[in-house]
């Protein structure tokens, strides 16, 4: 994991001081409301429906035990004892006091954390695969590049007042788990001969106008990363629309210009700066990589470990389910990555309490080299657990409530905070998630359904990624009433696809039954090997429509 040196510490400390000064000036009436707005947003501070909301950055999802304990302390001391993992791997506090935010930031700075650029019209926290560094299908670990991008984008003087927010994701694996097709810039790490570089996608995104990103460069050598990003951002900053908030994202510019013309504009700009001092050096790439080396793995016997696990699974069915659902393969023999489920029924997806955070800190130290990752599915991963400790770990997390064997199932839904917290919401999302979880409480039924993504957003802003779930749910407002529109067939990965709207929206109480109908159509039509997305692609949306909107006899 990246470790700050004195420069990083100075920068973050100066930021805290700056924001303290800004907050004081604001409270003293020296900064106007609208001028304070972008300043607080770029420190992650929203003013929400019920209270301010503070979004803390978790750079590409990595956290260590010390940081987890600090967050636990902060939630206890400054908030109501819990926080929320967001769909961009960050952490949100729902009830901080505006005047205490500088103190919270100062506490975070002690453990090399901050809330820099987690909101506002600037370059946001860069995200990647939660299994980075341990995935079996990884070409190259994306995290060193994420860190290089993090530093470059942090307080970038030119790009703090962009037309709109700007999100970058990096993927280093064959299977895309970072949704690079749906970011303003998506970077796919590729090799050409022996050289490392990036395939560059631009103009993807969700929200009001969902778009799948376009490739503007097949191979960008790694050293050119920052100069090329700078060229893209400059073109966007100068030419992106500023007259209409809903047309201000880079995707609209790329569409208007066409990807080919946009690529030419970037190329032309890039030629003027590609040999500048921002060209990366071997030394810097090496330095970044030196923070993401292997922990001190033991030499373990995969076959023996696996045999033992099979035996334990046979003896203990619940453990077996958990092992199958919540435990993933690891690049190294005898190791596994464990996903702690933050989706037990009745808890808002992604919510976690202070004592749970502390427990996870302890577990990470005992089982996984003291590090964890947050995931965009709003869970937490212990990435380096030796197989022979899995049973132990499982026994500890069952009473803690993290062992719900539902990862990848319908009940591992992505859900934004929605109308319970968010002032932009059209409808609540958490109660819909809960009603669905209650309806589908039979695990055997869930396992039989297989992998299926259910994504719920409380409004068009799509924080719950509803366009890219197998089943997407969008909260809509009809004459002041909360309704829910359903979309089917979205895909966040390599087969990037946007969901299609099924038809007219439903009331909240109808939702579990409607989801049931959709699942029935899938179960009745699937072949032995098909997952939901494949059946959907084969039979199309019509069969689902017919069933869902059939007149009752």
């Amino acid at each position, binding site marked *: 994991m990246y470790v700050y*040196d004195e*420069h990083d510490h*100075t*920068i973050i400390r*100066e*930021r805290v*001081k*700056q924001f303290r*000064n*800004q907050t004081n*000036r604001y409270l003293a009436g*020296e*900064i106007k409301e609208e*001028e304070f707005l*972008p*300043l607080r947003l770029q420190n992650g501070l929203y003013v929400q429906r019920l209270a301010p909301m503070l979004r803390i950055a978790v750079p590409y999802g990595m956290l260590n035990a010390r940081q987890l304990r600090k967050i636990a302390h902060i939630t206890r001391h400054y908030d109501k004892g819990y926080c929320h993992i967001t769909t961009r791997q960050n952490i949100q506090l729902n009830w901080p006091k505006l005047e205490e935010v500088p103190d919270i930031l100062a506490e975070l700075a002690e453990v090399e954390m901050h809330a820099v650029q987690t909101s506002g*019209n600037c370059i946001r926290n860069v995200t990647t695969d939660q299994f980075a560094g341990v995935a079996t299908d990884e070409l190259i670990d994306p995290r060193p590049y994420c860190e*290089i991008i993090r*530093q*470059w984008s*942090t*307080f*970038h*003087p*030119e*790009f*703090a*007042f*962009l*037309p709109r927010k700007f999100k970058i994701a990096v993927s280093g694996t064959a299977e895309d788990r970072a949704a690079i097709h749906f970011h303003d810039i998506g970077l796919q790490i590729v090799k050409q001969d022996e050289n490392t570089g990036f395939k560059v996608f631009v103009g993807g995104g969700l929200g009001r106008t969902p778009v799948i990103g376009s490739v503007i460069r097949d191979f960008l050598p790694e050293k050119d990363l*920052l100069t090329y990003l700078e060229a893209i951002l*400059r073109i966007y*900053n*100068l030419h992106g629309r*500023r007259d209409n908030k809903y047309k201000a994202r880079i995707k609209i510019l790329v569409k208007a210009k066409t990807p080919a013309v946009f690529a030419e504009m970037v190329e032309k700009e890039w030629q*003027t*700066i590609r040999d*500048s*001092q*921002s060209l*990366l*050096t071997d*030394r*810097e790439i090496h*330095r970044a990589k030196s923070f993401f080396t292997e922990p001190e793995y033991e030499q373990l016997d995969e076959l023996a470990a696996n045999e033992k696990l099979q035996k334990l699974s046979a003896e203990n069915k619940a453990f077996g389910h958990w092992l199958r659902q919540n435990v993933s393969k690891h690049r190294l023999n005898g190791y596994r990555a464990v996903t702690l489920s933050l989706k037990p029924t009745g808890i808002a997806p992604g919510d976690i309490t202070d004592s749970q955070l502390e427990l996870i800190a302890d577990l990470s130290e005992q089982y996984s080299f003291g590090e964890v990752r947050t995931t965009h599915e709003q869970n937490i991963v212990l990435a380096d657990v030796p197989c022979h400790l899995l049973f132990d770990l499982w026994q500890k997390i069952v009473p803690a409530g993290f062992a719900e064997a539902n990862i990848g199932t319908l009940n591992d839904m992505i859900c934004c905070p929605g109308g319970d917290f968010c002032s932009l919401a059209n409808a609540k999302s958490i109660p819909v998630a809960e009603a669905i979880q209650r309806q589908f409480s039979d695990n055997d039924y869930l396992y039989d359904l297989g992998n299926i993504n259910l994504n719920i957003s409380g409004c068009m802003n799509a924080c719950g990624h509803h366009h890219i779930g197998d089943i997407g749910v969008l909260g809509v407002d009809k004459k002041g009433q909360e309704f829910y529109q359903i979309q089917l067939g979205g895909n966040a990965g390599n087969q990037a696809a946007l969901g299609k709207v099924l038809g007219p929206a439903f009331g909240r109480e109808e939702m579990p039954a409607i989801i049931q109908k959709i699942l029935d159509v899938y179960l009745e039509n699937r072949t032995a090997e098909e997952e939901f997305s494949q059946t959907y692609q084969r039979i199309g949306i019509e069969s689902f429509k017919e069933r869902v909107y059939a007149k009752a006899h």
Partner: protein
Amino acid sequence: MPKLIKNGEVIDNQWSLIRDAEELTNTDLSSGYWVLPFDAFSSVKNGSGNNSEKIGVWLSSDANLESLSPYIQQLPLICIDFPAFVDGRGFSIARTLKEHYEYAGELRATGHFIQDQMHYLHRCGIDTFDIPDDWSVDSVLQSLNDFSISYQAAVDEPQPLFRRRN
């Protein structure tokens, strides 16, 4: 009187900014220091060469730098005028003028920017700031120095931090 900030000090401003064509017709350019809108500037420039070291230009945030490029090197002053502080185009224009066009004259921020942007603006190449009279100079100077170190290369520090770390 607005104040002018340069290198951490308040200095006298000898330049007057002419907003539009109408103002221009009522102005005698042969004496004094004038900042003209770009359109007017190019016609004045192409007409006669009078008083040229006393004529500057101000750019709106949609300025086309290519059409300005023939004149850039001779200009004593270029102002980047912010129509609204959230319009961040001026930051890119400033950097492009200084880095790409290697503009060596004075680059000034005018119009609606806010105190808390001044550090970034300075990093992007702004030399002087036209600030309203009611701003506290002490507070402004503090904001200008919010950060003592930066990660990225910019006009004030052409080497990114990664080339300067030990």
